[in-house]
């Protein structure tokens, strides 16, 4: 029991500390490719620290929803991160909710975030909410179908079980169903974390912004919570991608040696994935909003093919 609690705390610390690093790494990488100096690797930490100490302005039109939103968002995203295996094949709370719970917890956070955007009464908040809900809705079938493919392959929706079943089969990731599902989930990752070509986190242009429009009125500690939650959400989705499809090196128990090794491997895999994300980001232009459905339709087709290929190649 006490072990379990310690484990949760360890996991929490890992997620909280690692998530800004990935964001920072992504920014550095993009800057370097664009031959800019770019911010330092630890800039996201500094930003969070600064935001927490800053004062904030609450819009006079806002209700308690506006205040509750950062907390709900942060807490739901954090709980989602506890349901997925990070450095051990056993996620601390994976028994209490599988991949469906992860998807729906993130949806709960998004639900409140969109309400928070509408609560400000400005045009931007509503615009952001509308677009965010639209894009997440049309990303959902591709996401679910890809998740189904994985779950069917492992015979379980429990992510720990999925990762463990992957550990047993060394060449599983080469199976077409896995590859296609990975590709589909990668597109969903781009869309859900608001990366180019779907959304540009670095702009505040009303024609293009989605996520930033929703949180335009947030400032100070609330903004810090939202930014942090966004970083954790990105970490959650990336972890699902790396650990479900490439579970090598996940430690099966919690003894120090394997855990350390798998921590190193885990960070390495994440950095590798963010290199790919950065590569996609710098080599693409932002899409027109109504082209995004086409991209997500491709993701859907990929995941449908993934599913078909589970029995197409039964050999």
């Amino acid at each position, binding site marked *: 029991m006490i072990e379990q609690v310690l484990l949760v705390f360890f996991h929490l610390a890992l997620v909280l500390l690692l998530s800004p690093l990935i964001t920072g790494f992504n920014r550095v990488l993009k800057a370097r490719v664009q031959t800019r100096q770019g911010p330092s690797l630890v800039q996201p930490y500094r930003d969070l620290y600064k935001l927490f100490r800053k004062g904030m302005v609450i819009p006079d039109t806002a209700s308690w929803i506006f205040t509750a939103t950062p907390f709900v968002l942060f807490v739901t995203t954090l709980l989602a991160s506890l349901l997925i295996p990070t450095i051990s094949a056993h996620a601390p709370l994976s028994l209490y909710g599988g991949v469906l719970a992860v998807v729906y917890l993130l949806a709960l956070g998004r639900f409140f975030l969109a309400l928070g955007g509408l609560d400000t009464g400005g045009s931007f908040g509503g615009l952001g909410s509308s677009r965010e809900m639209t894009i997440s809705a049309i990303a959902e079938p591709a996401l679910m179908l890809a998740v189904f493919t994985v779950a069917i392959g492992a015979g379980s929706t429990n992510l720990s079980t999925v990762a463990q079943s992957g550990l047993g089969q060394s*060449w599983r990731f*080469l*199976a*077409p*169903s896995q*590859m*296609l599902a990975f590709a589909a989930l990668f597109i969903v990752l781009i869309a859900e974390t608001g990366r180019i070509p779907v959304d540009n986190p670095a702009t505040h242009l009303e024609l293009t912004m989605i996520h930033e429009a929703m949180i335009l009125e947030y400032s100070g500690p609330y903004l810090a919570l939202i930014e942090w939650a966004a970083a954790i959400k990105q970490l959650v989705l990336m972890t699902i991608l790396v650990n479900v499809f490439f579970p090598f090196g996940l430690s099966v128990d919690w003894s120090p040696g394997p855990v350390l090794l798998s921590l190193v491997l885990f960070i390495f895999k994440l950095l590798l994935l963010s290199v790919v994300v950065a590569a996609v980001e710098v080599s693409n232009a932002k899409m027109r909003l109504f082209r995004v459905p*086409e991209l997500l*339709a*491709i993701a859907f*087709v*990929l995941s*449908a*093919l993934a599913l*078909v*290929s589970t*029995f*197409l*190649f*039964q*050999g």
Partner: protein
Amino acid sequence: MQFWQDSQFGDRMITLMAALVLVLQITMVTQRWLITNIRAFALQSFLLACIATTIAYYNAAPHIYIAAVFMLLVKVILLPFVFERLVRRIEIRREIEPLINAPISVIIAGLLTLLAYVVAESFHRPDEPMGPASLGHNTLAVAIALFLIGFFMMVNRRKALTQVLALLSLENGIFLAAISLTYGMPMIVEVGIFFDVLVGAMVLAILVYRIRETFDSMDVSRLSRLKG
């Protein structure tokens, strides 16, 4: 034994490449840029050549290597080169709207894939032992799907050039079926087919150019004007 000598690994690779071939075929169904279409076709042919090489390697069958080399030369290098030059010369880079729009085409392609699976399942022998000899048998469904989707594309497209591409990808399906089931047809037949395809494609390419010159369009539905 190194891991790449294990035929199970080979099986994985073939399956994976076959899946990518299928993805490329569906990409071609939706893609409207001619250049992208040509490159997708080239990549698809390249993957097929790789599949052929893999099968040849595990079965130590030299004549399949030759088929792979032919594939590489004709369909990966020569034809795409010719076509790309053609596209530049006639200065048409995009397909006009196909008869059936992209989302529905994809759904049709998906249904054709399922049909292919049902057909292929009747050839399926579950008691077959795993080993080099059974390599690639599970790609029959993909081969049939390539054939069917290629046919569908020929019906669906308006531009002569994309129809040629569709025909070629259809032929790719036949190639995959031949190579995965029987490890290649008799050498002479294979060479003959390649030659046939090559000549056919070249003639079509010239024809496309002529159609374009005569009608100011590649739209084959204009050909109906030719009748007296």
